[in-house]
């Protein structure tokens, strides 16, 4: 097993040998396939039922988090842009699909209840009923403009890609054009996600304020299908998305394009002097990672069942950076390892599932102390293991010339 993708000095691979140059991709695909197969066999919906539906959902959500983590790794670990706003794109993807889920399901319910009357409802009555049902909670009964096409699945699916993509394109164009770099860019992206979260927190912006969108686990038209089956559908979809995303990003960061963006990370000015359009490269990376983040969010929130503006608060994006840093920047599987291990450990320890440790004088209650250890552990990783957990693989293959 050889790890080549993180070296700047990698010679351009001969045509058609992308997989041979990146053996980690095959390894990853194999492991992901085995994992998916294993979960399927153990699941309640399609297998022996050793894994609860709830756990399947958690695993599926973790796969989505891994997907946004590799996006973050590309934009930060490869291109050197420490974006503290990628969870905004994740959330926007979730909102876009959530609007359809909520609208379509409410419409079915309303049609059902109105249809019981002697006279069939008019379209207007249905629309008013849906609006009152969805927005009653924020004291409104009118459908905001942005919900005009919420009943159309293709439109909302397009929004999953277009809204994060366009936001990233406009924001990135503005930021890169005026040469905002380094820490300033981090703060600017943080401001962007803060502004978005504050905007969504308002009741009158048409996305139900801090109530968010809920009931997303119910798929319109498939009410009769049990959650144990639906959860597996989303698990497979997440696994496929992660696999495809991994392949896409592995391909993006290999070859000439990958070399250029790594060069931008290491010395932006020099790349510019060599005649490359640095802004274009950065904008491309920023936008495509935003789009993938949006897709990850669109798969994540139907499994979580609820989305609200707190999800895209600046802290979420910082945690994303933490996962990638702990897993190891500059290698895609590192991001996956970091996101999976930290988020799973986090939900295990804060969920109260872990046994507390009695030290005689002092008792470590994990729900209280986990964040303290995570924080300090993170400091230690930054100080002593800048390569993160993924760096351990270097020891495995060090002997190889």
């Amino acid at each position: 097993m050889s790890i080549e993708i993180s070296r700047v000095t990698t010679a351009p691979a001969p045509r058609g040998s992308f997989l041979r140059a990146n053996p980690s991709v095959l390894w990853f695909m194999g492991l992901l396939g085995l994992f998916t197969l294993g979960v399927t066999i153990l699941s309640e919906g399609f297998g022996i039922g050793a894994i609860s539906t709830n756990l399947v959902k958690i695993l599926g959500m973790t796969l989505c988090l891994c997907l946004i983590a590799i996006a973050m790794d590309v934009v930060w670990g490869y291109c050197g842009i420490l974006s503290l706003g990628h969870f905004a794109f994740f959330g926007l993807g979730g909102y876009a699909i959530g609007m359809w889920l909520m609208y379509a399901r409410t419409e079915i319910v309303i049609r059902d209840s109105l249809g019981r009357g002697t006279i069939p409802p008019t379209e207007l009555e249905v629309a008013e009923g849906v609006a009152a049902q969805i927005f009653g909670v924020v004291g409104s009964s009118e459908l905001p403009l942005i919900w005009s096409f919420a009943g159309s699945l293709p439109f909302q699916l397009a929004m999953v890609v277009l809204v994060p993509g366009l936001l990233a394109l406009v924001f990135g164009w503005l930021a890169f054009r005026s040469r905002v770099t380094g820490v300033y860019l981090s703060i600017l992206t943080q401001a962007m996600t803060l502004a978005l979260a504050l905007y969504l927190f308002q009741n009158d912006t048409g996305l139900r304020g801090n109530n968010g969108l809920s009931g997303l686990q119910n798929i319109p038209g498939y009410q009769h299908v049990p959650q144990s089956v639906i959860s597996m559908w989303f698990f497979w979809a997440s696994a496929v998305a992660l696999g495809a995303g991994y392949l896409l990003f592995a391909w993006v960061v290999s070859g000439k394009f990958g070399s250029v963006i790594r060069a931008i990370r290491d010395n932006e000015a020099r790349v510019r002097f060599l005649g490359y359009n640095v802004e274009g490269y950065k904008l491309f990376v920023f936008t495509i990672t935003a789009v993938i983040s949006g897709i990850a969010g669109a798969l994540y929130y139907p499994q979580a069942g609820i989305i609200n503006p707190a999800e895209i608060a600046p802290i979420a994006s910082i945690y994303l950076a933490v996962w990638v840093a702990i897993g190891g920047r500059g290698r895609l599987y590192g991001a996956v390892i970091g996101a999976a291990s930290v988020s799973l450990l986090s939900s295990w320890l804060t969920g109260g599932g872990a046994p507390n440790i009695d030290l005689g004088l002092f008792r470590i209650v994990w729900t209280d102390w986990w964040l303290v250890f995570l924080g300090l552990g993170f400091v230690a990783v930054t100080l002593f293991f800048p390569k993160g957990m993924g760096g351990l693989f270097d020891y495995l293959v060090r002997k190889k010339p």
Partner: protein
Amino acid sequence: MLRLLPCIAFMIALILVAPLRASAQSDTPLQDVLQTVQPLVASPSRGTVPEMLAALITADAPGTVAFLRAWSDREVYERPEDGFFFFAREGADRNLVLIDIDSGAEAGTASSRDVNQIRPNAGVRREVNAALVQFELLNPNPARRLAALDSIARSPDAEQIEALEIALEAEEDSAIAVRMQRLLDLLNARFATDTATRVDAIDGLRGDISTEARRALNQILQTQSGFGEAVPEGTNVARLRVPGDDMPLIAAYAVLSDAGLAPARPGRNAIRDVLRANVVDGTVGGIPVHQLDNDEARRAAYLALEQAGTVAPLVTTADMEAAVAQYVFYDAYLEADPAVTQAARDALDSTRTRISIWQFVGISIDALSLASIFFLAAIGLAITFGVMRVINMAHGEFIMMGAYTGYVVQTVIPDYTVSLVVALPLAFLVTFAAGVLMERLVIRHLYTRPLETLLATFGISIALQQLAKNIFGTQARPLTAPDWLAGAIQVNDLVSVASIRVAIFAMAIGFLLLLLYILNRTRLGLEVRAVTQNPGMAASMGINPDRINMLTFGLGSGIAGVAGVSIGLVAQVTSEMGANYIVQSFMTVVVGGVGSVFGTLAGATLIGFLQKGIEWFNPANTLAAQTYMVLFIILFIQFRPKGIVALKGRAAGD
């Protein structure tokens, strides 16, 4: 009104003779007096009140006013066996503890069945209250007179005019006389009987921006909508309303149909209900039910029913227009006298400009106060981030640490003033130490990797936050300001400033000056500037950059701690309070311009004024203001990436 006169006369007499009266009396002067008019007190009626008041007021025993208040509030009890009066409070076993009305001492217990509660009726109470107001208005103590004026202003009433006029005659204090005159104007404007007095009084209120004056004027200008075939004689019309133009046609028609002057117009829901009620064999008016899923089909079905004569006719737009055209719709003042409403409108218009100027002043003061909080939160960051280029995500947690230090000191030292004086330097020391420790252990190793300091300090930030949560719990802890900072400075009814905000403003100015002094006038400041500009050269000049970095970081953190104490006084102390300020603080520093104290000042001022300014357009929505402010900052950084105060030349670094 006239029946009050005897009481008033008695009271004036009483005040004049009071100092002459001998004080040698029994231990229970009030009880003695009350016993002389026992039947009148025990079973009051409106006719007997003047006599009772006269007796009480002539005797003027101590506590008379308090007794009368309690009496009219039904808090006085009579003991039937001897006819004595007592106050009472709830005791054990639903018994009442009787309280002597003279000494306030307990005088035994009684079952509530053994004593009679005295219940003066509403008429008696009104009379007594009016007499009490009058009594207070003539009180020799100016504070009591002012309090009486306030209570009149709170519940204005036509009957008080006479009392006020009498009191105004006798008033010697000019300030109180002015206030009385104004109150008299307010009452006259609303309650006087002849037009000339009212218009005069209203003219006296011109340019008066106080809430009570404007409320009185607005009350005069209250309107009620009405309609008729023509405007009735003697109606003081505020404006005519044209249906279809400044009044929706449907609303105008609804007014008519509500009044029974036109057939009700069936709305969409009504049509549906009618159709539902007329389903015959799966069709309505010949149209199958399953086709009724659009408005046209429903209308057609309804028209079919109408032609069959089973339902009321559909009202068309033309019908509504025809019906509405026969009537005039208008808003009329409740006040019938046009001269009075005209004067009131003029008086209100005259205040408009002054009100907006004062509102602007008020918003500016709010903005300044917000700016000083932003400045305090950000100035420590301006040092660590601006001077050392170290992103300290744990800065917010240093603010929190300072606030918790203040809280702990307050639990040890109960006196709020002393504890504040102790807490400020202690918070500085605690966070200074924490800052130095963090610099030595973590940041020192990451000077070449600025993005990684961001991550490492974020790790410290979540650890500290959780640690605070473990120690102090999740609920907010109070950090109480001393009494002398608790009030507010009331400029007028529109503008008031909380004293604590003034103190924070002063503190922000103090820190600005202190920092400027340290950076520009001390050895340490010189060395800090040298290390900032060129660490290598500074080191070769004999400056120890390690030590300077350590001290600078400690200074920035220490200031965060002090800021924490002051922010804790206005906001709540929670483990998350720092996180609420950190993003805004970074933006303040970046907008202002990195590496400059004045830049931070400019940034804080800009952000404070911007936020309050946006809030002004949409007062109910602070979130919107914050959103637009952040958007503005993002755009601002596009055009001035180096901030308002951009360093030039080599000091600008990269």
